[in-house]
Every structure is written in C-alpha cells, then in structure tokens.
C-alpha cells in the first residue's frame, strides 16, 4: 500500500540529493547558491536536481537568469514535472527564510530548502513551506524515496 511521500510538515529526499545541494552551496560560497529539484507533477517526489546559476552572483542575493528559467520551466512542463524543491543558500546568516525570501516566494506548492554555509564545518539544512507570506518549517527526512528499490 503506497503512502504519500511528502505529508503536511515533511520533506523526504535522498541522501544523494541532499549531498548534492550541500556540495553546490559549498562550491559557490561566499556567493549564494540556488537551484531546483524537479519531480513528477503532483507527486511531491524530489527526483531531478537542476542547479541554477545565480545571475546576481552575490553573497546576499540570488536570482535565476530569466531566459534560463524559461528554458528550465518549459523543460519541466514537457516532462510533466513541476518544481518540488526550490533551494538556496545563505552564506553568513542562518538557514531560515529572510523577509526577501518570503516576499519573492512564488511557487506555493514547493518546499523551500535553505542551506547555511556560514560555518565551515557544520552545514545547516532546513525546509519550509512559504504560502501567502507565511513560513512553516517542516521536518526533513533523508531516506530513499519509496519505489526506488533502495529501501
């Protein structure tokens, strides 16, 4: 009997994807890193990592290049996918959505993953829902997704 992968209040993702996000954040430090994890539309399953260029190249701001974003969003649409996770890093502050993050959050169905690389040894990795300006933290479960045969 199948159960939903992402319940209200939880994000499940594989260790491989989590490690890839952390590696991206570390590689771009001290600039903020950003990207998407796509998954089948309606499934809530984060499956396909899409690291994005931070067109702002800033230690305090990130922005997707508009034409790259069009290409990626069209590609997801062609594959019947949607953005399941929207991630970015903070390089000198904690892994919590800032006022700026909240005001720009525009994928109501996505999990917003924040990573902080402010400490060189210990990374912070947290996930949130952001809808109508309200932030709700959720549990992150690092585990293989059901059905991937690795359980």
């Amino acid at each position, binding site marked *: 009997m199948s159960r939903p992968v992402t319940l209200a209040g939880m994000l499940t993702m594989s260790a491989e994807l989590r490690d890839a996000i952390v590696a991206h954040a570390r590689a771009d430090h001290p600039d903020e890193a950003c990207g998407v994890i796509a998954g089948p539309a309606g499934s809530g399953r984060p499956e396909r990592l899409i690291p994005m260029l931070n067109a702002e190249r800033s230690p*305090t*701001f*990130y*922005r997707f290049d*508009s034409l790259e974003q069009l290409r990626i969003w069209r590609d997801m649409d062609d594959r019947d996918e949607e953005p399941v996770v929207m991630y970015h890093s903070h390089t000198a*502050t904690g892994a919590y*959505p800032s006022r700026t993050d909240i005001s720009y959050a*525009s*994928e109501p169905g996505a999990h917003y993953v924040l990573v902080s690389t402010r400490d060189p040894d210990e990374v912070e990795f947290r996930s949130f829902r952001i809808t109508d300006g309200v932030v709700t933290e959720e549990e992150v479960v690092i585990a293989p997704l059901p059905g991937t045969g690795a359980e």
Partner: protein
Amino acid sequence: MAIEVRIPTILRTYTGGAKSVEGSGDTLGDLFADLDARHGGLRDRLVDDTGLRRFVNVYLNDEDVRFIGGLSAPIRDGDTVTVLPAVAGGSR
C-alpha cells in the same frame, strides 16, 4: 487573433485555475488590458505604474520582453506569451 498566454501557478486564481488563457492586442500592454477584462485583477499582478513589475518575467515566444520594448512590444498572430514569477531572494 488569439494569443495564447501561459499563466504560472501562483496567478491561476485569476483564471479559474486555467494554465493558459487567450487574448488579443497589438502590443503586450493591449494584451494585458484585454486579459484583465475577463480575468479581473490579473493585470495588476503584472504591471505597476512604472511598467512591467520588476520580479515578474514575461516572455514573448523565446524572448524576455524587457529586451524588446516591454509593454510596447508588438504582438503578432501566432505569438505565445509566457508569464513566470522571477525566482529570487537573499539573506536580508
């Protein structure tokens, strides 16, 4: 003339949930005014008194309209307009 306008998830409250709507106009500005007649409030999410809203991306076919005249960009039969909220944020 029926121009397809693709609407992002966050704006589908204005279109009754539709991913795509149709409209017409000689320019992008005209097209948005036309859409607003049937989807009240949609134009306000795309345009403010300075023109196109800063963190909304509007594309005419494969181009970002910021580089081809913004609201004065001419629209032709068969064009597709795509709207995507810009993805951005920061630590403050």
